[in-house]
């Protein structure tokens, strides 16, 4: 495509049937103690 470049394809709605297993980390636990950002849960290490 000439005018639009996709940075990320659809990912949120993939596998929604499997969503909600709940083993993930709670969110306000580590680096933030007041403002929580869930989307950043997994760290991308260099």
């Amino acid at each position: 495509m000439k005018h639009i470049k996709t940075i990320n394809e659809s990912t949120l709605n993939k596998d929604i049937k499997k969503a909600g297993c709940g083993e993930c980390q709670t969110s306000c636990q580590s680096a933030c103690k007041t403002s929580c950002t869930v989307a950043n849960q997994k760290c991308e290490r260099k």
Partner: protein
Amino acid sequence: MIHSFKIHGTYMVLDVMSGAVHQLDEVAYDVLGCYDENGVLNNDELKNLSRYNESEINEAIEEIEYLKKNHMLFTEDPYTQMLPGWAKQTVVKALCLHIAHDCNLRCGYCFAGTGEYMGHRSLMSLDVGKKAIDFLIENSGNRRNLEVDFFGGEPLMNFEVVKGIVDYARTREKETGKNFRFTITTNALLLDEDKRRYINENMHNVVLSLDGRKEVNDALRKRIDGTGSYDRVLPLARKMAEERGQQQYYVRGTFTRKNLDFGTDVLHLADLGFEQISVEPVVANKDSGLDIRAEDVETVCREYEHLAKEYVERRKNGQWFNFFHFMIDLEGGPCVAKRLRGCGSGTEYLAVTPEGELYPCHQFVGRKEFLLGNIYDGLNQNPVRDTFRNTNVYTKPRCNSCWAKFYCSGGCAANAWQFNSDIRIPYEIECELEKKRVECALWIKAQESSRLAGPAEN
């Protein structure tokens, strides 16, 4: 629902329901602006784009239509029918243990009233700590991974109890099949070699509090004698970061309206060699002189954009660091069910006071109307528990119509309570900052992905 925005001359759009992110050129951005919220092109508005030639406009329309067809723009909400299933009874999976309601600092913005939490100074006993571990195991259902954060006040003031609790939890791990992850949040003042070694061997994550520049830090993070804490804390925090291989820790600062140029503090921490940095806005009373006000929002947003630019530059040029609030994992982030409810305070996450009382989270401790029981008798019938359980981005009207809902997850209940006296009404100023951080994070992704995909930069 889509959200299109522009940062540093880059045009971008987020397709809210699918999570697809695109970078556009100016034509496509303007053409996209002629679509209504349902993805229908308004031909009358197109007429205002006479500055572009027709073939360009048609190409852009074609590309937008292609993305629509492939569920990467104007995607409809596929989640509503799943909501009842995701709302099933929750279990407790994380505790914040208030090891010490006492502190060896007197920080000007402390939400805990310098450790007292509207109570009196006290330390958690080992007995209460063990009972809290038992409570967590008993209330965690089939959940295997359990988290315990040692918090305060200042937890290093009661470190023998911390060790005792870790030992106890490890023995219970074996018989119950649970897996504990420990973290500790400390001001680093008492972080001697023995404690560092113990923490490095036993704790999954460490949060070290430091606000940034010396003058900024020392203006608010004062020792009991009134002097600043920077000179003592910095070398200890640095050692800790080094010993942990610059991973699994955060140096965490707070900014207030006294340092709206907090980006300089973030960069200062990076200059000092810290690679994992979190600096976030204060939660302070309206009359404290420290709280971020509506008139500050524009300045703060501009500061985030500045910082984002510098962040990309540094990471590209061998000065890599990680800023917690710009981290976003587009491919592998948490599932939508998780994104609906955020921190889990009051349901899967609870705070335990030194006396063993339970509260929705550390920020609610001491507010009696939020008392949820105690570790001896278990959870009580306080109706606010249902409010926490039934609250998610779909039940909060403001969040439901917000483009950032799957990244923000509905904001901080404690903030909402403090400013709007209702955990279901998010604190608007925090919303504005959060949305700007998400925009910056998406922009950073675009910058860093074009570097991977494109030709080498010169």
